[in-house]
C-alpha cells in the first residue's frame, strides 16, 4: 500500500501512522452532551468499502492527511491535507 502524500508524493505505508475514522477530526464542543461525546470517542460506522480516515505522514513531512480508502480492497481513493 502506498499513500500519495500531497506534499511528498507517493510514499510507502511504513512512513505513515494511522489514527482512525476521519470523524475524529471533528471534536464535539466542550459543553456537548454526554451522548455526543460517547459517539465521538467510542462509536464507529466501521464500513466495508470506502472509509474516510486520518493518517499522519509521521516519517515524512508530518502532515495530517484525510484519506479515503476502500477497506475491502485497500485501494486509496483520495488523499488531502486536513487543513
Amino acid at each position, binding site marked *: *500500500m502506498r499513500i500519495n502524500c500531497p506534499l511528498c508524493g507517493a510514499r*510507502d*505505508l*511504513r512512513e505513515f*501512522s*494511522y489514527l*482512525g*475514522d476521519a470523524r475524529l477530526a471533528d471534536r464535539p464542543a466542550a459543553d456537548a452532551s*454526554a451522548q455526543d461525546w*460517547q*459517539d465521538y*470517542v*467510542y*462509536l*464507529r*460506522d*466501521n*464500513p*466495508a468499502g470506502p*472509509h474516510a*480516515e486520518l*493518517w499522519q505522514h509521521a516519517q515524512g513531512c508530518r502532515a495530517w492527511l484525510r484519506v479515503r*480508502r476502500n*477497506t*475491502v*480492497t*485497500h485501494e486509496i481513493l483520495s488523499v488531502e491535507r486536513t487543513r
Partner: protein
Amino acid sequence: MGYSGFKVFLEGLRGNTGWKPVWRDPAPKAHYDVIIIGGGGHGLTTAYYLAKNHGITNVAVLERGYLGGGNVGRNTTIVRANYLLPGNSEFYSHSLKLWEGMEQELNYNTMMSQRGILNLAHSDGQMDAFARRGNQMRLQGDDAVLLDAQGVRDHASFLNFDSQRFPIRGGLLHGRGGTARHDAVAWGYARGADQFGVDLIQNCEVTGFKIEAGVVKGVETTRGSISAGKVGMAVAGRTSQVAAMAGLRLPVESHALQAFVSEGLKPVVPGVVTFGMGHFYVSQSDKGGLVFGGDLDFYNSYAARGNMPAMEHVMEAGMAMMPMLGNAKLLRGWGGIMDMSMDGSPIIDRTPVQNLYLNGGWCYGGFKATPASGWCYAHLLATDQPHPVASRFTLNRFETGQLLDEEGTGPRPNRH
C-alpha cells in the same frame, strides 16, 4: 455415531468407506425459537449450549459461507486464562475449564494440548507486572509460575539469551495454557449441536432484520424469510455490518490480523512462547509447522489478508526472540478480520432492539473464549440475564465508564 480408537482401526481395515457425514444439511424452516447468525466457533457453541444447558433445540445457525470458515479456521489456536482484570479473569478461567473437558464432552478429538504458555519479561518493570498478573491468575484459581532467567533457559533453551537490547530477565509460565486444533473445535460443536436437533444452515446470508415496534421478529436471508423468537449475532469481523442492518452503531472497528506458518519441523517449541518486547508469539502445530503471529495491520480492513510491513515486523520480532527461526522457511501466511472493540474486551449483551442479542468485539482473543462465549451467550439468550462470569461484557459500559481495558491503551482499537 460415536468415535473411538476401535472405530478408527476398523475403518482402516475397511478402507475408510464407513464414515458418514456428521451433520445434516437441512433447509431452513419458517420459524425457530432462536436464530444464531454466524456458524463459526462462537455461534456453534452457543447453539450447542442452548440445547444442552437450556433444552432449547428449535434453533437455527445461519452461516453465509461454510461452517467454521471464518476466524475459527484462521487463528493461531492458543488457549489460555492469563487475564488480569476482574470481569475478564473469571470468564477466561471458566473457558479454560470447558476446554479441559471438551473432548470428553463432545466425543471429538480437538487435540487440546496443554503444554504451557511462557510470556517473556525483559525488564524489572515487566517482572513486577508479571508477578502481579500471576498472583491475580492464582487468586482466580488458575496456575502461574514466575520464572527467573535460568527457569526460562530450562524451559526453552533456544531463545536469544545473548541479546543486549532485549535481555531475558524471566517470564510467566501458565502451564495449563496451550493449543487446540481449531477446525476440530468448530466441527465437534457442530456435530454436537446437530445431534441435539439444531439446524445448521450453510450458504444462507442474512440480508436484513424484521423489526416491528422495536422488537425483532425474524431475519431476511438469501434463502427466504425466517421468523424467530430471539435472534443472536455472532459474526466476529462482520459485527458492525450485521448490527447496522438493525440500525445499531457499535464501539467496534474491524482490523486485519496476520498469522504465519513455517515448513514442518521436528518438535522444538514447548507450548507457546511470547516475546515481551514486541508483539510476537509462536507455537508448534502437531504437524510440525511453527505457527506465529504478531500485531494487527493497524488500519481498518475487511480484506482477509495483510500487508508487508506488519509481516516484516513479525519476522523481525521473531528473529530477535529466537534467532533459529531464520533457518526455517515460511510456508504460508493468512489474515483474518478482527472485531476490535474500543477497550479490547468483548461484548455479550442485549441490544436496544428487543430480543436481538450481540456477541462480538472479541478482538484477536476469540478462539480461547469459544466454549465460554457460547456457554454465556446461550445463558443470556435463554434467560435474558447475563451469565455471572460474563456480566461485565456489557454494551453500555462505554457509556457508563465501566471499561475493561486490559492493555490500558484507551479507546484505540488498533492498540489493544
